């Protein structure tokens, strides 16, 4: 990790649902201008962690800070400068992409919403989708429009839950490259949740392995691979999970 001030911080975050611990005292810090990946099988606690970082879910204990703001008591100032996308939460179906983006552009106080939408549409190659109701789009198209919503306010922090889950391999590669360029040109910070190991390896400066709500290990992907003497991140994950004594279904197994 670098010594740059953290854009996103989790300090001993914990969450229980119905007596079951889904996030267990997780701590990490994400320096500005870097990409951080939360890795783990389904149910590992990745999305719950992101929702706590966004202030959408209140932690039972611990603290989440984004851009220096405490997300329990001061979250709206951070939310103005951040954004979130998940392929599992699409935009309202009856409205067209342009209408949805207009509403969200105005919610974020974007100065010239119409021009910003045109600009984003060009960058994301979604001009032909703008006037189509979101409900009539394929999953991949919805994901691209969702990324458009994320970029509306030129966010300093992007929270992305499975950003390429519904995309074709070509589109996924293109989006990964696009997000990397966005980060490099704006010094934005990206926090993403994924169980796609190659994707995380390609995109992230640092990662954290989660299993059953616990953070097993964190660090730079190459450093983790080297430290464990493995060829891929997936091999590292399996070894770490096994060492934790509770080997879980592998990433992407849909557990």
């Amino acid at each position, binding site marked *: 990790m670098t010594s740059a001030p953290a854009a996103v911080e989790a300090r001993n975050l914990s969450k229980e*649902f119905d007596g079951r611990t889904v996030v267990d005292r997780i701590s990490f810090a994400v320096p500005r201008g870097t990409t951080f990946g939360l890795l783990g099988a389904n149910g590992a606690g990745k999305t*719950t962690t992101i*929702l706590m970082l*966004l*202030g*959408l*879910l*209140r932690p039972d204990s611990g603290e989440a800070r984004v851009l220096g703001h405490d997300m329990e008591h001061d979250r*709206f100032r951070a*939310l*103005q400068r*951040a*954004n*979130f996308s998940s392929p599992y*939460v*699409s*935009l*309202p*179906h*009856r*409205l*067209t992409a342009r*209408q949805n983006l*207009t*509403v*969200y552009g*105005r*919610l*974020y*106080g974007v100065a010239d919403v119409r021009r910003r939408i045109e600009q984003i549409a060009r960058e994301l190659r979604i001009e032909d989708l703008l006037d189509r*109701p979101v409900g009539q789009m394929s999953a991949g198209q919805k994901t691209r429009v969702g990324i458009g*919503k994320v970029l509306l306010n030129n966010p300093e922090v992007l*929270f992305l839950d499975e950003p390429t889950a519904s995309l074709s391999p070509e589109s996924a590669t293109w989006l990964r490259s696009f997000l990397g360029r966005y980060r490099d040109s704006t010094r934005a910070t990206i926090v993403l949740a994924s169980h796609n190991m190659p994707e995380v390896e390609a995109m992230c400066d640092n990662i954290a392995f989660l299993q059953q709500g616990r953070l097993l290990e964190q660090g730079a992907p190459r450093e983790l691979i080297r430290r464990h003497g493995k060829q891929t991140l997936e091999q590292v994950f399996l070894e770490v999970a096994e060492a934790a004594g509770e080997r879980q279904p592998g990433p992407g197994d849909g557990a």
Partner: protein
Amino acid sequence: MKASLGRIGAMMTRYTYLYLVSPIRILELVYWPTFNMLIWGFMQEYLNSATHPAVFAASYLIAAVLLWDVLFRSQLGLTLGFVEEMWARNLGHLAVSPLRPLEFVGALIATSLVRTLIGVGGAGFLATLFFGFNALELGVGLALFFLNLVIMGWGVGLVVCAILLRYGLAAEALAWGALFVLQPLCGVFYPVSILPDWLEPIARALPATHVFEGMRTVVQDGRLDTGLLAQAFLLNIPYALAGLAAFLGSYAVARRRGLLMSTGE
């Protein structure tokens, strides 16, 4: 403040878009108020011809049914705006945007006001065409009756939203039915003095009861009873505050239990 109004305006744009993409929804706004008004208008005509005119003031029932619709539409308008977000599974997106819960409430209230004016305004216009009803006969009281009824409607609407937030769309029927529990008590079509003794105090604890009593005083005696209006206003304060507290409380619980992201069908 400016940013706040901008976000409320953004949400009103969202609800306006819903009507633009589905214009048939506008029909829904005026359909039931008009249908109701016609039934009671014809009933009024019949009663006027069958009974002594002194027993039934000319526009009594029409005024009653239109004011009832003000109460009902203001509650429904607010609740449906919220239900729309649940149907669209959009609450999570809104909750991670800069939109504050109070601004969300402001947008729901503003949208409800527009919906109520369109729905009841349309029915009122038709009542003039069909039955020669003149709402302006209610004088300055009309605006005060209207104001009291929409405030109570919003208070009840916020409580319904709080329940929806807690129990999800399983409680959706409340959006349409909640207020009808109170209708027999409000004295919409009859004085509350005809209720059983034990029910009368309960009826008088409802702001709308004083509005409908006040409406009858204007229609039958041509006199605006400011005492009744004052009681309605005083009662509306705790109703509105309780509605707001219920909504904000339920929102806080939803944040703790992770319900904001999981709402929907």
